[in-house]
Protein backbone atom coordinates (compact mmCIF):
# COMPACT_ATOMS: atom_id res chain seq x y z
CA UNK A 1 0.00 0.00 0.00
CA UNK A 2 2.72 2.42 1.04
CA UNK A 3 4.82 1.44 -1.93
CA UNK A 4 1.99 2.23 -4.35
CA UNK A 5 1.40 5.65 -2.79
CA UNK A 6 5.14 6.23 -2.84
CA UNK A 7 5.35 5.53 -6.56
CA UNK A 8 2.37 7.75 -7.25
CA UNK A 9 4.04 10.61 -5.35
CA UNK A 10 7.34 10.00 -7.09
CA UNK A 11 5.64 10.14 -10.48
CA UNK A 12 4.20 13.55 -9.56
CA UNK A 13 7.56 14.84 -8.42
CA UNK A 14 9.21 13.52 -11.53
CA UNK A 15 6.55 14.99 -13.79
CA UNK A 16 7.02 18.40 -12.22
CA UNK A 17 10.72 18.33 -12.99
CA UNK A 18 12.59 21.38 -14.14
CA UNK A 19 12.76 24.50 -12.05
CA UNK A 20 9.72 24.14 -9.83
CA UNK A 21 9.80 20.52 -8.66
CA UNK A 22 9.70 19.31 -5.11
CA UNK A 23 13.35 18.25 -5.28
CA UNK A 24 14.74 21.35 -6.95
CA UNK A 25 16.80 23.58 -4.71
CA UNK A 26 15.64 27.19 -4.76
CA UNK A 27 18.70 29.43 -4.53
CA UNK A 28 16.82 32.40 -3.10
CA UNK A 29 15.44 30.35 -0.28
CA UNK A 30 18.86 28.86 0.40
CA UNK A 31 20.24 32.39 0.57
CA UNK A 32 17.57 33.49 3.04
CA UNK A 33 18.02 30.32 5.09
CA UNK A 34 21.76 30.90 5.35
CA UNK A 35 21.29 34.53 6.33
CA UNK A 36 18.49 33.82 8.82
CA UNK A 37 20.27 30.90 10.38
CA UNK A 38 23.59 32.68 10.78
CA UNK A 39 21.96 35.78 12.32
CA UNK A 40 19.90 33.53 14.58
CA UNK A 41 23.00 31.59 15.57
CA UNK A 42 24.81 34.84 16.39
CA UNK A 43 21.95 36.43 18.35
CA UNK A 44 20.96 33.30 20.25
CA UNK A 45 24.57 32.34 20.86
CA UNK A 46 25.33 35.71 22.37
CA UNK A 47 22.11 36.58 24.17
CA UNK A 48 20.49 33.23 24.91
CA UNK A 49 22.69 30.13 24.87
CA UNK A 50 25.66 31.70 26.60
CA UNK A 51 23.75 33.09 29.62
CA UNK A 52 21.45 30.06 29.78
CA UNK A 53 24.27 27.52 29.68
CA UNK A 54 26.29 29.55 32.16
CA UNK A 55 23.30 29.78 34.49
CA UNK A 56 22.68 26.05 34.18
CA UNK A 57 26.30 25.28 34.94
CA UNK A 58 26.30 27.70 37.86
CA UNK A 59 23.17 26.13 39.23
CA UNK A 60 24.53 22.62 38.88
CA UNK A 61 27.69 23.66 40.65
CA UNK A 62 25.70 25.42 43.38
CA UNK A 63 23.62 22.28 43.90
CA UNK A 64 26.69 20.10 43.97
CA UNK A 65 28.36 22.44 46.43
CA UNK A 66 25.39 22.72 48.73
CA UNK A 67 24.99 18.95 48.69
CA UNK A 68 28.60 18.55 49.71
CA UNK A 69 28.14 21.18 52.37
CA UNK A 70 25.03 19.46 53.66
CA UNK A 71 26.97 16.22 53.84
CA UNK A 72 29.71 18.01 55.75
CA UNK A 73 27.23 19.62 58.11
CA UNK A 74 25.63 16.25 58.73
CA UNK A 75 28.98 14.77 59.55
CA UNK A 76 29.71 17.70 61.87
CA UNK A 77 26.35 17.36 63.58
CA UNK A 78 26.97 13.68 64.12
CA UNK A 79 30.31 14.45 65.71
CA UNK A 80 28.82 17.13 67.95
CA UNK A 81 26.03 14.80 68.98
CA UNK A 82 28.50 12.11 69.93
CA UNK A 83 30.53 14.66 71.84
CA UNK A 84 27.46 15.91 73.64
CA UNK A 85 26.45 12.41 74.54
CA UNK A 86 29.90 11.67 75.88
CA UNK A 87 30.00 14.81 77.98
CA UNK A 88 26.49 14.15 79.22
CA UNK A 89 27.50 10.67 80.33
CA UNK A 90 30.56 12.15 81.99
CA UNK A 91 28.48 14.75 83.80
CA UNK A 92 26.09 12.09 84.97
CA UNK A 93 28.96 10.05 86.28
CA UNK A 94 30.36 13.12 87.99
CA UNK A 95 27.07 14.01 89.60
CA UNK A 96 26.64 10.45 90.78
CA UNK A 97 30.04 10.58 92.34
CA UNK A 98 29.33 13.91 93.99
CA UNK A 99 26.06 12.65 95.39
CA UNK A 100 27.75 9.53 96.65
CA UNK A 101 30.48 11.58 98.26
CA UNK A 102 28.09 13.98 99.88
CA UNK A 103 26.01 11.12 101.14
CA UNK A 104 29.02 9.53 102.72
CA UNK A 105 30.05 12.85 104.18
CA UNK A 106 26.59 13.43 105.59
CA UNK A 107 26.53 9.98 107.07
CA UNK A 108 29.87 10.60 108.65
CA UNK A 109 28.77 13.94 109.99
CA UNK A 110 25.62 12.44 111.38
CA UNK A 111 27.50 9.71 113.14
CA UNK A 112 29.96 12.22 114.52
CA UNK A 113 27.23 14.54 115.80
CA UNK A 114 25.39 11.65 117.37
CA UNK A 115 28.53 10.44 119.04
CA UNK A 116 29.43 13.88 120.24
CA UNK A 117 26.00 14.54 121.67
CA UNK A 118 25.98 11.15 123.26
CA UNK A 119 29.29 11.90 124.92
CA UNK A 120 28.09 15.29 125.97
CA UNK A 121 24.93 13.83 127.42
CA UNK A 122 26.96 11.23 129.26
CA UNK A 123 29.21 13.94 130.58
CA UNK A 124 26.23 15.98 131.70
CA UNK A 125 24.75 12.96 133.34
CA UNK A 126 28.05 12.15 135.03
CA UNK A 127 28.47 15.74 136.18
CA UNK A 128 24.97 15.79 137.49
CA UNK A 129 25.49 12.51 139.33
CA UNK A 130 28.69 13.78 140.93
CA UNK A 131 26.96 16.97 141.96
CA UNK A 132 24.10 15.02 143.37
CA UNK A 133 26.50 12.81 145.30
CA UNK A 134 28.35 15.81 146.59
CA UNK A 135 25.14 17.59 147.55
CA UNK A 136 23.94 14.41 149.18
CA UNK A 137 27.10 14.12 151.26
CA UNK A 138 26.90 17.82 152.24
CA UNK A 139 23.25 17.44 153.13
CA UNK A 140 24.05 14.36 155.11
CA UNK A 141 26.76 16.18 157.09
CA UNK A 142 24.41 19.10 157.72
CA UNK A 143 21.76 16.73 158.79
CA UNK A 144 24.17 14.93 161.08
CA UNK A 145 25.28 18.22 162.68
CA UNK A 146 21.74 19.44 163.00
CA UNK A 147 20.56 16.15 164.43
CA UNK A 148 23.42 16.29 166.95
CA UNK A 149 22.52 19.89 167.83
CA UNK A 150 18.88 19.06 168.13
CA UNK A 151 19.70 16.07 170.23
CA UNK A 152 21.97 18.16 172.48
CA UNK A 153 19.36 20.86 172.67
CA UNK A 154 16.71 18.33 173.39
CA UNK A 155 18.84 16.53 175.99
CA UNK A 156 19.83 19.77 177.68
CA UNK A 157 16.20 20.80 177.72
CA UNK A 158 15.19 17.46 179.09
CA UNK A 159 17.79 17.19 181.84
CA UNK A 160 17.53 20.87 182.68
CA UNK A 161 20.81 20.31 184.26
CA UNK A 162 23.67 22.67 184.15
CA UNK A 163 25.95 20.22 182.74
CA UNK A 164 29.13 20.98 181.12
CA UNK A 165 28.46 21.22 177.41
CA UNK A 166 31.55 19.20 176.78
CA UNK A 167 30.51 16.52 179.10
CA UNK A 168 27.07 16.47 177.63
CA UNK A 169 28.38 16.16 174.12
CA UNK A 170 30.58 13.30 175.16
CA UNK A 171 27.62 11.71 176.76
CA UNK A 172 25.41 12.14 173.69
CA UNK A 173 28.08 10.78 171.45
CA UNK A 174 28.44 7.87 173.72
CA UNK A 175 24.75 7.22 173.43
CA UNK A 176 24.76 7.70 169.68
CA UNK A 177 27.63 5.33 169.30
CA UNK A 178 25.76 2.84 171.45
CA UNK A 179 22.70 3.35 169.27
CA UNK A 180 24.62 2.95 166.02
CA UNK A 181 26.27 -0.14 167.45
CA UNK A 182 22.93 -1.62 168.00
Amino acid at each position, binding site marked *: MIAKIYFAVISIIASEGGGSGLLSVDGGLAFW*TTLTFLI*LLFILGKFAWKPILT*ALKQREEAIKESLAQAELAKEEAKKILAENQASLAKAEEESKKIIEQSRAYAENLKQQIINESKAQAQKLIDDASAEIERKKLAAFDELKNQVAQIAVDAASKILKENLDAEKNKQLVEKYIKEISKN
Partner: protein
Amino acid sequence: MDSLATHLIVDSLKNKQSESGGSWILHHVMDGNYLDFSPFGKIYLPHLELFGFDISITRHVVFMWLAAILLTYVFIKVAKSYQNSLVPKGSTNFWEVFIVFVRDEIAKPTIGKGYEKFLPYLLTAFFFILFGNFLGLIPFSATFTSNIAVTATLATMSFLVIQLGGIRNNGFLGYFKGLIPHGVPVFLLPIMVVVEVLGLFTKPFALAIRLFANMTAGHIVIYALISLIFVMQSYLISPVSVGMALFIYSLEVLVALLQAYIFTMLSSLFIGMAVHQEH
Protein backbone atom coordinates in the same frame (compact mmCIF):
# COMPACT_ATOMS: atom_id res chain seq x y z
CA MET B 1 -10.25 -1.93 2.87
CA ASP B 2 -6.53 -1.33 2.75
CA SER B 3 -6.15 -1.97 -0.92
CA LEU B 4 -9.25 0.09 -1.62
CA ALA B 5 -7.84 3.05 0.27
CA THR B 6 -4.53 2.69 -1.51
CA HIS B 7 -6.28 2.55 -4.84
CA LEU B 8 -8.26 5.68 -3.99
CA ILE B 9 -5.23 7.63 -2.88
CA VAL B 10 -3.28 6.70 -5.97
CA ASP B 11 -6.27 7.52 -8.11
CA SER B 12 -6.79 10.82 -6.42
CA LEU B 13 -3.19 11.79 -6.93
CA LYS B 14 -3.39 10.85 -10.61
CA ASN B 15 -6.71 12.62 -11.06
CA LYS B 16 -5.58 15.82 -9.47
CA GLN B 17 -2.44 15.69 -11.47
CA SER B 18 -4.33 15.35 -14.73
CA GLU B 19 -6.90 17.92 -13.70
CA SER B 20 -4.62 20.84 -13.07
CA GLY B 21 -1.65 19.80 -15.11
CA GLY B 22 0.28 19.54 -11.87
CA SER B 23 -0.88 18.93 -8.39
CA TRP B 24 -2.78 21.05 -5.93
CA ILE B 25 -1.18 18.96 -3.21
CA LEU B 26 2.25 20.02 -4.31
CA HIS B 27 1.11 23.61 -4.41
CA HIS B 28 0.37 23.35 -0.74
CA VAL B 29 3.53 21.52 0.15
CA MET B 30 5.87 23.54 -2.03
CA ASP B 31 7.10 27.05 -1.67
CA GLY B 32 5.20 29.94 -3.26
CA ASN B 33 5.23 33.67 -3.54
CA TYR B 34 2.02 34.14 -1.58
CA LEU B 35 0.59 33.30 1.85
CA ASP B 36 -2.32 30.97 1.32
CA PHE B 37 -5.37 31.67 3.45
CA SER B 38 -7.83 30.03 1.10
CA PRO B 39 -10.76 30.19 1.06
CA PHE B 40 -10.27 33.65 2.58
CA GLY B 41 -7.76 34.79 0.01
CA LYS B 42 -4.07 35.13 -0.61
CA ILE B 43 -1.43 37.63 0.39
CA TYR B 44 1.15 38.12 -2.33
CA LEU B 45 4.74 38.64 -1.24
CA PRO B 46 7.28 41.03 -2.77
CA HIS B 47 9.65 39.92 -5.49
CA LEU B 48 13.27 40.80 -4.82
CA GLU B 49 16.41 40.49 -6.90
CA LEU B 50 20.04 40.84 -5.92
CA PHE B 51 22.60 41.10 -8.74
CA GLY B 52 20.12 39.35 -11.00
CA PHE B 53 19.69 36.62 -8.45
CA ASP B 54 16.13 35.84 -7.39
CA ILE B 55 15.79 36.32 -3.65
CA SER B 56 12.03 36.78 -3.49
CA ILE B 57 10.37 36.64 -0.13
CA THR B 58 8.40 33.42 -0.32
CA ARG B 59 5.99 31.60 1.96
CA HIS B 60 8.76 29.54 3.48
CA VAL B 61 10.93 32.60 4.05
CA VAL B 62 8.08 34.27 5.93
CA PHE B 63 7.58 31.27 8.18
CA MET B 64 11.31 30.89 8.66
CA TRP B 65 11.45 34.45 9.90
CA LEU B 66 8.46 33.83 12.10
CA ALA B 67 10.29 30.86 13.62
CA ALA B 68 13.43 32.96 14.04
CA ILE B 69 11.52 35.75 15.78
CA LEU B 70 9.75 33.26 18.06
CA LEU B 71 13.05 31.58 18.89
CA THR B 72 14.73 34.87 19.69
CA TYR B 73 11.83 36.01 21.84
CA VAL B 74 11.45 32.75 23.73
CA PHE B 75 15.10 32.13 24.50
CA ILE B 76 16.08 35.66 25.36
CA LYS B 77 13.17 35.59 27.79
CA VAL B 78 14.50 32.32 29.21
CA ALA B 79 17.98 33.82 29.49
CA LYS B 80 16.58 36.86 31.29
CA SER B 81 14.63 34.72 33.74
CA TYR B 82 17.93 33.13 34.80
CA GLN B 83 19.32 36.54 35.60
CA ASN B 84 16.66 37.04 38.24
CA SER B 85 17.15 33.71 39.91
CA LEU B 86 18.86 30.44 39.17
CA VAL B 87 15.68 28.63 40.11
CA PRO B 88 13.60 28.26 36.94
CA LYS B 89 9.99 29.40 36.91
CA GLY B 90 7.04 28.80 34.63
CA SER B 91 7.87 28.31 30.94
CA THR B 92 11.59 28.43 31.67
CA ASN B 93 11.20 24.95 33.15
CA PHE B 94 9.71 23.72 29.88
CA TRP B 95 12.47 25.10 27.65
CA GLU B 96 15.15 24.06 30.11
CA VAL B 97 14.11 20.44 29.64
CA PHE B 98 14.94 20.69 25.91
CA ILE B 99 18.16 22.62 26.44
CA VAL B 100 19.40 20.17 29.05
CA PHE B 101 18.29 17.30 26.81
CA VAL B 102 20.35 18.61 23.88
CA ARG B 103 23.29 19.19 26.18
CA ASP B 104 23.22 15.98 28.25
CA GLU B 105 21.63 13.45 25.88
CA ILE B 106 22.90 14.64 22.50
CA ALA B 107 26.09 16.69 22.73
CA LYS B 108 27.77 15.26 25.83
CA PRO B 109 27.65 11.54 24.97
CA THR B 110 28.35 11.91 21.23
CA ILE B 111 31.06 14.59 21.22
CA GLY B 112 32.52 14.06 24.67
CA LYS B 113 35.38 16.33 25.67
CA GLY B 114 35.07 19.85 24.32
CA TYR B 115 31.36 19.54 23.52
CA GLU B 116 30.65 23.04 24.87
CA LYS B 117 32.05 24.70 21.74
CA PHE B 118 29.45 23.02 19.54
CA LEU B 119 26.47 23.52 21.85
CA PRO B 120 25.36 26.88 20.40
CA TYR B 121 25.20 25.43 16.88
CA LEU B 122 23.42 22.25 17.98
CA LEU B 123 20.92 24.13 20.13
CA THR B 124 20.17 26.64 17.38
CA ALA B 125 19.75 23.90 14.79
CA PHE B 126 17.56 21.83 17.10
CA PHE B 127 15.18 24.62 18.01
CA PHE B 128 15.16 26.12 14.49
CA ILE B 129 14.05 22.78 13.06
CA LEU B 130 11.70 22.10 15.98
CA PHE B 131 9.94 25.43 15.64
CA GLY B 132 9.80 25.04 11.85
CA ASN B 133 8.27 21.58 12.14
CA PHE B 134 5.64 22.71 14.62
CA LEU B 135 4.85 25.90 12.72
CA GLY B 136 4.07 23.67 9.75
CA LEU B 137 1.38 21.92 11.75
CA ILE B 138 -0.62 25.12 12.23
CA PRO B 139 -3.46 25.57 9.69
CA PHE B 140 -2.74 28.06 6.86
CA SER B 141 0.95 27.92 7.60
CA ALA B 142 3.75 26.32 5.61
CA THR B 143 6.49 23.95 6.69
CA PHE B 144 9.78 25.51 5.73
CA THR B 145 11.65 22.43 6.94
CA SER B 146 9.90 20.44 4.22
CA ASN B 147 11.76 22.43 1.59
CA ILE B 148 14.88 20.78 0.21
CA ALA B 149 16.60 24.17 -0.12
CA VAL B 150 16.22 24.80 3.61
CA THR B 151 17.27 21.32 4.69
CA ALA B 152 20.18 21.33 2.28
CA THR B 153 21.34 24.64 3.70
CA LEU B 154 21.06 23.35 7.23
CA ALA B 155 22.93 20.20 6.25
CA THR B 156 25.63 22.37 4.65
CA MET B 157 25.95 24.23 7.94
CA SER B 158 26.35 20.91 9.74
CA PHE B 159 28.90 19.86 7.13
CA LEU B 160 30.92 23.03 7.69
CA VAL B 161 30.73 22.69 11.47
CA ILE B 162 31.83 19.04 11.25
CA GLN B 163 34.81 19.80 8.97
CA LEU B 164 35.89 22.94 10.82
CA GLY B 165 35.56 21.17 14.18
CA GLY B 166 37.65 18.27 12.92
CA ILE B 167 40.31 20.51 11.39
CA ARG B 168 40.48 22.73 14.46
CA ASN B 169 40.93 19.79 16.77
CA ASN B 170 43.29 17.63 14.71
CA GLY B 171 45.05 20.12 12.46
CA PHE B 172 44.40 20.40 8.72
CA LEU B 173 46.66 17.54 7.66
CA GLY B 174 45.98 15.49 10.77
CA TYR B 175 42.24 15.62 10.16
CA PHE B 176 42.39 14.39 6.57
CA LYS B 177 44.98 11.77 7.45
CA GLY B 178 42.75 10.62 10.30
CA LEU B 179 39.85 10.07 7.93
CA ILE B 180 41.49 6.91 6.64
CA PRO B 181 41.40 4.12 9.22
CA HIS B 182 44.65 2.77 10.58
CA GLY B 183 46.11 -0.41 9.18
CA VAL B 184 44.68 -0.13 5.68
CA PRO B 185 46.89 -1.86 3.09
CA VAL B 186 48.67 0.55 0.78
CA PHE B 187 47.07 -0.81 -2.39
CA LEU B 188 43.63 -0.04 -0.96
CA LEU B 189 44.51 3.57 -0.22
CA PRO B 190 43.24 5.10 -3.48
CA ILE B 191 39.86 3.43 -3.01
CA MET B 192 39.70 4.36 0.67
CA VAL B 193 40.43 7.99 -0.07
CA VAL B 194 37.58 8.12 -2.57
CA VAL B 195 35.23 6.29 -0.21
CA GLU B 196 36.04 8.45 2.78
CA VAL B 197 35.81 11.71 0.86
CA LEU B 198 32.49 10.58 -0.57
CA GLY B 199 31.45 9.67 2.96
CA LEU B 200 32.08 13.23 4.09
CA PHE B 201 29.46 14.45 1.64
CA THR B 202 26.92 11.64 1.93
CA LYS B 203 26.47 12.29 5.65
CA PRO B 204 25.05 15.82 5.29
CA PHE B 205 23.25 14.76 2.10
CA ALA B 206 21.41 12.10 4.10
CA LEU B 207 20.66 14.68 6.79
CA ALA B 208 19.06 16.99 4.22
CA ILE B 209 17.03 14.31 2.49
CA ARG B 210 15.87 12.72 5.75
CA LEU B 211 14.48 15.93 7.20
CA PHE B 212 12.96 17.04 3.90
CA ALA B 213 11.32 13.68 3.16
CA ASN B 214 9.94 13.19 6.65
CA MET B 215 8.44 16.63 6.84
CA THR B 216 7.01 16.44 3.32
CA ALA B 217 5.61 12.93 3.41
CA GLY B 218 3.23 13.47 6.30
CA HIS B 219 1.77 16.58 4.75
CA ILE B 220 1.28 14.91 1.38
CA VAL B 221 -0.51 11.99 3.01
CA ILE B 222 -2.81 14.35 4.93
CA TYR B 223 -3.67 16.26 1.75
CA ALA B 224 -4.19 13.01 -0.15
CA LEU B 225 -6.60 11.74 2.51
CA ILE B 226 -8.54 14.99 2.46
CA SER B 227 -8.63 14.93 -1.34
CA LEU B 228 -10.49 11.63 -1.18
CA ILE B 229 -13.61 13.62 -0.36
CA PHE B 230 -13.36 15.58 -3.58
CA VAL B 231 -12.30 12.64 -5.68
CA MET B 232 -15.25 10.54 -4.60
CA GLN B 233 -17.53 13.57 -4.56
CA SER B 234 -19.33 12.29 -1.53
CA TYR B 235 -19.71 13.57 2.01
CA LEU B 236 -19.92 10.01 3.24
CA ILE B 237 -16.21 9.48 2.89
CA SER B 238 -15.37 12.55 4.95
CA PRO B 239 -15.42 10.84 8.42
CA VAL B 240 -12.92 8.30 7.13
CA SER B 241 -10.76 10.97 5.51
CA VAL B 242 -10.80 13.31 8.46
CA GLY B 243 -10.26 10.48 10.95
CA MET B 244 -7.25 9.13 9.09
CA ALA B 245 -5.90 12.63 8.47
CA LEU B 246 -6.20 13.30 12.18
CA PHE B 247 -4.29 10.13 12.89
CA ILE B 248 -1.53 11.14 10.48
CA TYR B 249 -1.53 14.62 12.01
CA SER B 250 -0.93 13.14 15.48
CA LEU B 251 1.86 11.12 13.96
CA GLU B 252 3.23 14.35 12.48
CA VAL B 253 3.47 15.88 15.94
CA LEU B 254 5.68 12.99 16.94
CA VAL B 255 7.67 13.20 13.70
CA ALA B 256 8.18 16.95 14.17
CA LEU B 257 9.86 16.34 17.52
CA LEU B 258 11.68 13.25 16.33
CA GLN B 259 13.19 14.80 13.20
CA ALA B 260 14.54 17.80 15.10
CA TYR B 261 16.13 15.32 17.51
CA ILE B 262 17.51 13.09 14.75
CA PHE B 263 19.02 15.97 12.76
CA THR B 264 20.73 17.34 15.86
CA MET B 265 21.74 13.91 17.10
CA LEU B 266 23.35 12.87 13.82
CA SER B 267 25.07 16.26 13.40
CA SER B 268 26.43 15.88 16.89
CA LEU B 269 27.50 12.31 16.20
CA PHE B 270 29.37 13.34 13.03
CA ILE B 271 31.00 16.22 14.89
CA GLY B 272 32.09 13.77 17.57
CA MET B 273 33.53 11.42 14.93
CA ALA B 274 35.41 14.28 13.27
CA VAL B 275 36.74 15.74 16.51
CA HIS B 276 37.80 12.48 18.16
CA GLN B 277 39.00 10.43 15.20
CA GLU B 278 40.61 7.68 17.22
CA HIS B 279 37.21 6.13 17.87
